[in-house]
């Protein structure tokens, strides 16, 4: 299997803190990879370095064989990479449905073409389908900021899929989601993975969720990869238990 995403020796420091300290890994097309590690181990920083949000001080990132190190978030979106942030990031004063449409409308085509496009940018049906899948249809016309935290969280995740990305990086998708809903979220992500062959990298603190969702798990500790393997292997790894699962 050729790698969809390749990360080689990625590093980033903040002052004296080596947040990401020479991380290398590969993600194959269609894989669902978990990224776990204690608070402050550098997971979000690693995402942001891959996604052009912050510049890495060293290392390389390759997507589909193409060098994408330090490309802008905009360029990466155009290439087919979607993401969510650790903090909830929706557009609070837009309706839930408009949040989804705006998440998809800029992916293709030309700026001036969009001025003349229909108001829903031709994405109304796609947005409605996404609302259905994420069970948000009943709040479609409500301002996103007026929705419950859980609903906003689902919307936030749904937005990352509006462009039909080939790779999606999710930063704690289960954080703050009602336990009842976690099963649905798991099924949803699995279905997106199966139907569209979307590849995932998922940061998560909820062990049960991540172990059930992922094919493979990477463990980060103090900015380095501590362990890597199937959920079972990682769960049984003494170093991981000591650094993370034990406490």
């Amino acid at each position: 299997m050729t790698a969809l995403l390749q990360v080689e020796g990625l590093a980033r420091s903040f002052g004296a803190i080596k947040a990401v300290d020479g991380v290398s890994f590969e993600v194959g097309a269609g894989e669902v990879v978990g990224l776990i590690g204690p608070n402050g181990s550098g997971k979000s920083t690693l995402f942001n370095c891959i996604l052009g949000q912050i510049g890495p001080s060293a290392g390389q990132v390759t997507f589909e064989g193409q060098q994408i190190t330090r490309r802008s978030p905009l360029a990466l979106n155009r290439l087919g990479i979607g993401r969510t942030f650790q903090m909830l990031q929706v557009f609070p004063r837009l309706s839930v449905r408009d949040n989804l449409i705006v998440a998809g409308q800029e992916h293709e085509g030309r700026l001036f073409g969009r001025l003349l496009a229909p108001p829903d940018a031709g994405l109304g049906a796609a947005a409605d389908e996404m609302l259905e899948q994420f069970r948000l249809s009943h709040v479609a016309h409500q301002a996103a900021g007026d929705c419950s935290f859980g609903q906003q969280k689902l919307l936030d995740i749904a937005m990352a899929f509006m462009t039909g990305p080939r790779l999606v990086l999710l930063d704690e998708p289960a954080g703050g989601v009602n336990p009842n809903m976690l099963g649905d979220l798991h099924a949803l992500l699995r279905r997106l993975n199966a139907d569209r062959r979307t590849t995932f990298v998922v940061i998560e603190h909820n062990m049960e969720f991540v172990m059930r969702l992922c094919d493979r798990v990477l463990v980060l500790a103090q900015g380095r990869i501590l362990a890597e393997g199937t959920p079972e292997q990682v769960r049984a790894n003494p170093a991981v238990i000591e650094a993370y699962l034990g406490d």
Partner: protein
Amino acid sequence: MTRWLLPAAVLAVLIALPHGLKSYGIYLLSLWAVYAMAAMGLNLTLGYAGQVSLAQAAFLGIGAYVSALLTVNGVSFWLALPLAGLVCFAVGILLGFPALRVQHHYLAFVTLGFNALVFLVLRNEEWLTGGTYGVEGIPRPSLLGLPTQSPIGFYYLSLGFLVVLSFALYALLRSPWGRAFAALRENPTRAESLGVDIRAYTLLAFAIGSGVGGLAGAFYAPLVEFIDPTPFDLGTSLALLLMVVVGGSGYFAGPFLGAALVMLLPEWLRFSESLYLLLYALLVMVLMATCPSGLLGLWAQARERLSRRRPPPPVLETRT
């Protein structure tokens, strides 16, 4: 189509209004139309796209001078009008560049500096602008042989253009661009990660808002028939900002209401004579402190509260 009822009624009133007024009243109405245009432009930049600008009076001024200098030299107003808009659109792009680097109050200072710069150019480049002597004898435009030179005729012309401009901006804000502007305002980082070209939209927000300011200026010049740099100073930019904010920034009708209020309030407060500026300032402060989303924001809140009293429609809650 009930949502068109209120605008249509307001328009009917605006058409009927000048018949009961003396020429000063008609002049004020025309001035309102011009300020409403300029404030509408600023509302796009600030209210919809979230980019602070304290330079809208500069564009009103550039538009007015372009229109004035061309028309006194025999160029048709109908050519001068789009040129005024285009010049301001282009200068607006330039003003947008600092906004790619700084935001909020820093951006306010940059745009404020720009307004001061334009004011100085208008005052000092006498060969072009006539300096403090200004430009006089600005002709009023004619249209299809209609009596558009009379006060009431010119008012109708301005009102007609305000309506056209409103439709154009409404269409623009309903297009995907409007949604992208809102995304830029609400969360540029997230917007960019979703493929929104925030650089392009920031520049566009300034360019369009400024261009609309230029169009307003093109009408301002023939309205007053004589222009000098004074009405395009920072004070006017602040007044335009006040119009947008008092009316309700990010509400489509905000500038219309805001322009009326900011213009009429001083007139109404005349009774208090020397105290009027004080009262005016106080009223504005109270309004802004109690309702930062402006009058239309207040109205929206009131409506929401009223509708909450009714039992909510039954919805099947999914368990989230």
